[in-house]
């Protein structure tokens, strides 16, 4: 349903966020798009003398000043290794890092802070689970299910693990519109299925997958589920207890936090029994040459010095996410999505991948397409010189490119800070670029 993917925070709560976001005083209850944009310094820059139109948000979002400030603050004032020393700086850095963990726990509605593991990104989170879950629970002849819509990061780690363990990888296909073919799910699950990994929203198709239903059907068969939330966390209201997922993984950098940050949410029942991924500092209980015991969660999975200055930026980033959940802004963003979708769908030169069905609300403002007779790279090069940043190529989803019989696509992905004027300018420039190339 629509509601599960729109964070319905009321204005009354919204006012409360001013208390801990000091540079947002210029924002009034009526969300003005210009005031939102003013929070992101990169948005005011020019490229080739033209205003930057940043439409590559699915790759990484721009950073708000509050995130940049927090990173700077820790690095300038509280730079010390966390969890180790007793001195003041170490204590401050540890506090900032652990406060961020609490903020993530609250944001996901996880039961315990022990279930929140900081990683370097979605890819690292998937690799951690594929290794640790695989080494603990997967044996020769077992099976793992992924879907055809997955990013390479949610395919290759599973493939590596399957090769290591002599297990096999099975694939849930998508249909021509880019929707998962759920009617095939039951025949894929066998008594050898050990885990299913599925994306919440494909970075190519932009369709919100019915992960809650998938999880429930898998659990009926005793199969745990990992949800790749790299895009989902940005566009959906994620409640890991409501979803009942076993693992939910995402990156910070697509969600306004500093780059090099990621989260693995894992249900405690799995994390406790899984063997560690990496060994080293601060993940241990006691160490001797005859054997080592491991630290309790979450430290068991956080070996070595963590990226603490960046991880600490989850807190201001999540505050911003809450702020952006303003009804006026959501309506405005939806209008932009509807406009771009309508223009693209009506243009018979354009083939869109990831076509919404039933409700438009299961499509995020992300559009991957090809233009007949035109190479995606040419379009991206020309749009770039017009000031528009878009993505072109295989988008780390080669199996999906093969599925649709293309060598690559052009992708535009909008964020809440993009304007209707930018969308109109993009459409105008796309037209100009196509005319130049045909």
């Amino acid at each position, binding site marked *: 349903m629509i509601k599960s993917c729109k964070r319905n925070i009321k204005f009354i709560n919204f006012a409360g966020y001013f208390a801990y976001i000091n540079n947002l005083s210029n924002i009034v209850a009526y969300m003005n798009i210009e005031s939102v944009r003013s929070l992101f310094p990169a948005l005011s820059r020019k490229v080739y003398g033209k205003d930057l139109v940043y439409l590559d948000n699915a790759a990484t979002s721009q950073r708000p000043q509050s995130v940049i400030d927090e990173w700077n603050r820790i690095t300038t004032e509280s730079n010390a290794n966390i969890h180790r020393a007793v001195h003041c700086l170490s204590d401050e850095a540890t506090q900032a890092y652990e406060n961020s963990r609490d903020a993530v726990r609250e944001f996901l509605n996880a039961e315990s802070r022990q279930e929140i593991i900081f990683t370097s990104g979605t890819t690292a989170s998937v690799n951690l689970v594929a290794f640790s879950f695989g080494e603990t629970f997967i044996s020769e002849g077992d099976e793992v299910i992924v879907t055809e819509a997955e990013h390479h990061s949610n395919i290759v780690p599973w493939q590596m693990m399957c090769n290591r363990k002599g297990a096999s990888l099975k694939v849930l296909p998508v249909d021509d519109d880019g929707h998962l073919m759920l009617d095939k799910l039951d025949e894929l699950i066998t008594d050898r299925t050990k885990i299913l990994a599925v994306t919440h929203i494909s970075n190519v198709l932009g369709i919100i997958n019915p992960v809650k239903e998938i999880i429930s059907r898998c659990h009926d068969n005793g199969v745990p589920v990992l949800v790749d939330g790299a895009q989902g966390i940005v566009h959906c209201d994620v409640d890991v207890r409501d979803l009942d997922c076993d693992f939910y993984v995402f990156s910070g950098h697509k969600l306004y936090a500093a780059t090099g940050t990621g989260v693995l949410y894992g249900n405690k029942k799995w994390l406790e029994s899984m063997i560690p991924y990496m060994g080293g500092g601060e993940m241990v209980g006691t160490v001797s040459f005859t054997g080592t015991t491991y630290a309790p969660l979450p430290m068991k999975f956080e070996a070595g010095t963590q990226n603490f200055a960046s991880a600490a930026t989850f807190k201001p980033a999540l505050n911003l996410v809450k702020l952006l959940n303003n009804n006026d802004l959501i309506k405005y963003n939806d209008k932009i999505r509807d406009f771009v979708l309508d223009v693209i769908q009506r243009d018979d030169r354009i083939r869109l991948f990831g076509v919404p069905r039933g409700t438009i609300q299961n499509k995020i403002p992300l559009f991957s397409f090809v233009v007949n007779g*035109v*190479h995606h*790279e*040419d379009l991206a*090069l020309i749009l770039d010189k017009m000031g528009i940043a878009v993505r072109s*190529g295989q988008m780390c989803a080669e199996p999906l490119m093969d599925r649709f019989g293309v060598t690559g696509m052009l992708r535009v992905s909008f964020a809440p800070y993009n304007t209707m004027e930018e969308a109109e300018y993009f459409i105008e420039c796309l037209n100009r670029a196509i005319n*130049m*190339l045909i």
Partner: protein
Amino acid sequence: MTLAEAENAVIDEFSMYEEWLDKYEYLIELGKSLKDYPESSKVDNNLIKGCQSRVWLDYEIKDGRIVFNADSDAIITKGIISLLIGIYSDRTPEEILSSDFSVVEKIGLKENLSPTRANGLVSMIARIKDIARQTVKVD
């Protein structure tokens, strides 16, 4: 026209366009003008690695001169290889190897391409040089 003259002609031509979009338009025209690359020559051996789009470069020796032919599935890339062919095709291998290929820097092509595409350009030049070197050896 000597090779140096051909290089200077391209530099002059390119400098006529101030806006990069106009330069692209010029490259697109160059790309469209490059024709008749046989489908049968679109083989892995002729494929240039390091390019995001696919580029095929083939050649034949005519009277001791190397005649290049190329194609690409992307038109701007095809324009770039067409521009290179315009300068370096129908030359002796010695002539080609005497060039420092600074023309691509002088017209700002290298710095105006993103690193992945600049890699493609570097690969195209490397292939042209390789072919010239091999031809010298054979002689």
